[in-house]
């Protein structure tokens, strides 16, 4: 009998991080009806910008770099947690501007454009940060491991899970309890009506895309210490994110969260019994669930089916 508990905890941690990635994704799908295949690339961009902030990798040889690296690691980490997502958000807005000609056309065009964008971002990352695998330096407080009931747990995984829960709750509160959130949700439901009520639809889309991209970037900064940072990390991560959206039902907030936890747990549990096959479990989960519910767990009918 394998002790399942560590695997369940790992799975849950992974699920929470997946949920964080999937939220930005589902927000963009819901409001824009764009399947953003570049979401993983925005995740990667957030993480790489964080790398630059923490390690000073562009300016470490300059006098500014020397001063910068003399700052405490904890402070640099907190700054990275803000700057990484912000820059990813800006990149997302740029992508939204590129997407404008595809509105009103079949969803295929948005998907293709973002696929091209993913390719471009990956190549840019290779050009700017190099092709090798890199690591984010973590502050002492959240690094290392602790012992509980005779088992070793990674402190960082607990920090990442807690951070994800807080972030998910914040996004939920923003969508449910603020007027900006109400407009976004209305935009997902009926964008024509939102426009008719006098809201600037173009600006709404730009902001939603920026916000979703910033969430992707945030997930990137938090997740790469576990997942690893390499130029094609975007493609590696966009696939789970994408399956989660489909399993949960395209455009559904809670669907995405539940599906993310399910996928995380599936990977964790398969990891206990057949580690080499753990990634496969999410595809099997996808096919099993779509076999019974063609729109996913909590999905509704949408324009994406046309």
């Amino acid at each position: 009998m394998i002790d399942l508990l560590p695997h369940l905890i790992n799975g849950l941690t992974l699920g929470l991080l997946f949920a964080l990635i999937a939220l930005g994704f589902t927000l963009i799908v819901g409001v824009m009806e764009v399947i953003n295949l570049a979401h993983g690339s925005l995740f990667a961009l957030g993480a790489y910008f964080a790398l630059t902030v923490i390690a000073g990798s562009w300016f470490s040889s300059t006098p500014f770099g020397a001063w910068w690296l003399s700052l405490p690691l904890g402070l640099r980490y907190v700054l990275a947690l803000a700057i990484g997502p912000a820059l990813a958000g800006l990149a997302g807005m740029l992508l939204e501007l590129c997407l404008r000609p595809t509105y009103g056309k079949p969803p295929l065009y948005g998907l293709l454009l973002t696929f091209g964008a993913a390719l471009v971002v990956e190549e840019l990352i290779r050009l700017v940060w190099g092709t090798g695998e890199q690591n984010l330096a973590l502050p002492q407080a959240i690094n290392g491991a602790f012992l509980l009931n005779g088992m070793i747990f990674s402190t960082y995984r607990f920090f990442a899970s807690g951070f994800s829960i807080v972030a998910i709750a914040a996004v939920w509160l923003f969508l449910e309890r603020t007027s900006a959130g109400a407009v976004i949700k209305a935009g997902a439901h009926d964008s024509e009506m939102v426009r008719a009520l006098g809201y600037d639809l173009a600006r709404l889309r730009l902001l939603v895309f920026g916000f979703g991209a910033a969430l992707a970037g945030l997930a990137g900064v938090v997740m790469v210490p576990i997942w690893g940072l390499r130029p094609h990390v975007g493609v590696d991560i966009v696939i789970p994110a994408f399956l989660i959206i489909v399993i949960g039902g395209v455009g559904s907030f809670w669907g995405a969260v539940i599906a993310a936890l399910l996928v995380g747990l599936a990977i964790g549990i398969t990891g206990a019994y057949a580690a080499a096959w753990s990634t496969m479990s999410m595809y099997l989960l996808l096919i099993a669930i779509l076999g019974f519910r063609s729109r996913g767990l909590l999905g509704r009918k949408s324009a994406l089916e046309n």
Partner: protein
Amino acid sequence: MISLSDIPARPSAWITPPIIVLALLLLAAPNLLPAIGLYQYLGIEIAIWIIFALGFNLLFGYAGLHSFGHGAYLGIGAYAFGLFQHHVAVSLWGGLLAAVLAAGVAGALVGAFLSHRRGIYYALLTIGFGQIFWFLAMKLHSVTGGEDGLLGIPRPPLTLGPWQVALTGNPALFYFAAVLLMIVVVLCWRLANSPFGRVLQAIRQNETRARFVGYDVWRFKWAVFTLSAMIAGLAGSLLAMAQQSAYPDVMSLHQSGLIVMMVLVGGGLVSFWGPVLGVIFYFVARDVLGGLTETWLLWYGLIFMAMVMLRPEGLAGMLHGLLRRSPPRQPGAVAVPATEAA
């Protein structure tokens, strides 16, 4: 935007002028390629990918079914060919048959699962299945060789009765691939302009309407998926011969996306010949841009993005527009049909 339906069908024509032009180009290619500074092997690569792209476009351009996991069937064909050579017999025809059948069976199974789906869900599931096949190729180490690939696949000689030709040299393999390519071109052309092809286009324009008119839409979607998988399998067997090995790499999402990019850049949405242009453009861009810069994919990606934004009808659509500055409007036809604008 023009679409495939704006190009009139020629139901009786098996051979058309563009087919003859392509055949002549292929005939001259081994002399032509070195003359413009390229190499023999490129011709084989282009021929293989044109076969793959033409089959793919029956699904993508004609039926409007967006598969993002089609590299899987190319890979299955390559593995089936290699495994046949290793475990059954060293035989060209046997290998080709095994590749087409294996890809066809995989396509038929996946197609049965997919054909009730529409729109983006169809695309999503093709990604899911494509990833499963890729994953299997990576993990079934004892069968596929895992990440290292299936190595040492021979190029069996071509046997037709008493007549035998070795395909070990690149020019010989190129001519063999070119002959298969011409067969695929003629078959696809006939099929696209047959009643079957017309129904596929009806499904693309409005699936619900096609069903209400009385067509068994499920069966057509299933048939075209299986068929395009079989053609991909054929291309895969040639790929296995060309590389003398098979790798899981061709089954990755990245490669499956590349075929979509090639077909779209070429104009597969608006023209039968779009995929051919797209494949040639991709490989020439790879060699020309790749000679200038390490990051050629960055530039190809940017070209692709610009294409999707500004000219989604691709190279073929641009040519079409150049040839006919003012396209003659059919009486009563409105500029854009409602289904295209939706």
